[in-house]
């Protein structure tokens, strides 16, 4: 479903990686590993289409990316908080859904926030939340936005034990439902199975 071949990337004059290739089918996930500066984040940004690759081919359902279909099927969570500090978690969720052209009623948004342990925080401005809680607001999107491919860059950072376990469960559910995921992390992930790619 996701087929990557011959991907190459350089930063400035430095070559980060070359000839990276893998395929992901339904229910599969890929663990991208590598030392600091090996190019994990660069690979993620290439994969989702934020930066152009020096060489290589990325195909989603047989079609070259980036395409509207690919973006519709994709959730990418990067290093950034990607939430507005001045808005409440609820507003953040509903407005980002609206920007994506997806209707999201208050009930579904609230349910997602509660599942992520933000009960009682839904009407506070995000700026007063802790770093881990901000991260949870972002992760709530995984529940509210239907997407087949999750690309999560260091998603387990800044999360406490409970949240790590919860995210692991979310990913497992997603995979069980036929989804796909590409994850980066230094530490072992609480998700069973998975292919490994070492940069």
């Amino acid at each position, binding site marked *: 479903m996701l087929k990557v071949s011959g991907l190459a990337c350089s930063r400035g004059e430095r070559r980060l990686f070359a000839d990276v290739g893998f395929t992901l089918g339904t229910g599969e996930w890929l663990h991208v590993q590598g030392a600091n500066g090996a190019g994990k984040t660069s690979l993620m940004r290439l994969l*989702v*289409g*934020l*930066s*152009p690759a020096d060489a290589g081919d990325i195909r989603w359902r047989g079609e070259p990316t980036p395409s*509207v279909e690919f*973006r*519709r099927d*994709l959730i*990418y969570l*990067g*290093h*950034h*908080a*990607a*939430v*507005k*500090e*001045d*808005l409440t978690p609820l*507003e953040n969720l509903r*407005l*980002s859904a*609206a*920007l*994506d*052209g997806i209707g999201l009623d208050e009930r579904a948004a609230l349910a997602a926030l509660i599942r992520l342990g933000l009960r009682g925080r839904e009407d506070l*401005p995000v700026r007063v939340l802790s770093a881990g809680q901000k991260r949870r607001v972002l992760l709530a999107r995984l529940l509210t936005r239907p997407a087949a491919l999750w690309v999560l860059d260091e998603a387990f950072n800044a999360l406490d034990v409970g949240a790590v376990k919860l995210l692991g469960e979310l990913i497992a559910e997603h995979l069980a439902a036929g989804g796909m995921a590409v994850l980066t992390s230094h530490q072992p992930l609480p998700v069973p199975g998975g292919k490994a790619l070492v940069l």
Partner: protein
Amino acid sequence: MNALLATVRRDILLALRRKSEVLTAVFFFVIVTSLFPLGIGPEPLLLKKIAPGILWVAALLATLLGLPRLFAADHVDGTLEQMALSPSPLGLLVAGKILAHWLLCGLPLVLLAPVLGLQFDLDASALGILTLALLLGTPLLSLIGAIGAALTLGVRGGGVLLALLVLPLYIPALIFGAGAVEAHIAGLDVGGHLSLLAAMLVLAAFFAPWATTAALRVALE
């Protein structure tokens, strides 16, 4: 189209949570226009003659003041990245952001201009033309300015550079905008000026979001 309106709603909501940023540009406009009579002297005929130019230049600078923030906040917190990857076309979201910028920064200037025009002894019909010209011209300023804001996103010395890039491109708007009011005061027909402003606005509405989107994608790489 819903995505465009959602962006407008989002940016207005954000601005309402941080009112000071919007009000700064408006106060700047009021103060700058009020400084000119103090610097030049209260001679009504002279003031009347330079009023269109001063109001337009002040509107130009006030618009410029808010431009660096147009994409900067979204860029820093990563929401711009999410917009670029959204299933909604980025051009539509960018158009929404530009529209919100105009509603927050341009429209208040249009509404304030007739009041400030009174300081310069402009009569009612001249004030009407001034407002109309600004109504056509300020969206043009937001559209062109957005290209500059996207090009200088995250760049060293972005604010000054933005002024250098954008101000030369503002000249046609300034010429026809201020020219319309001057022509009216001189008793000439202003239809030509206004229709040229409108034509430029249509052209910019068509091309500027596209160029801005291209520049944003470059900035995100």
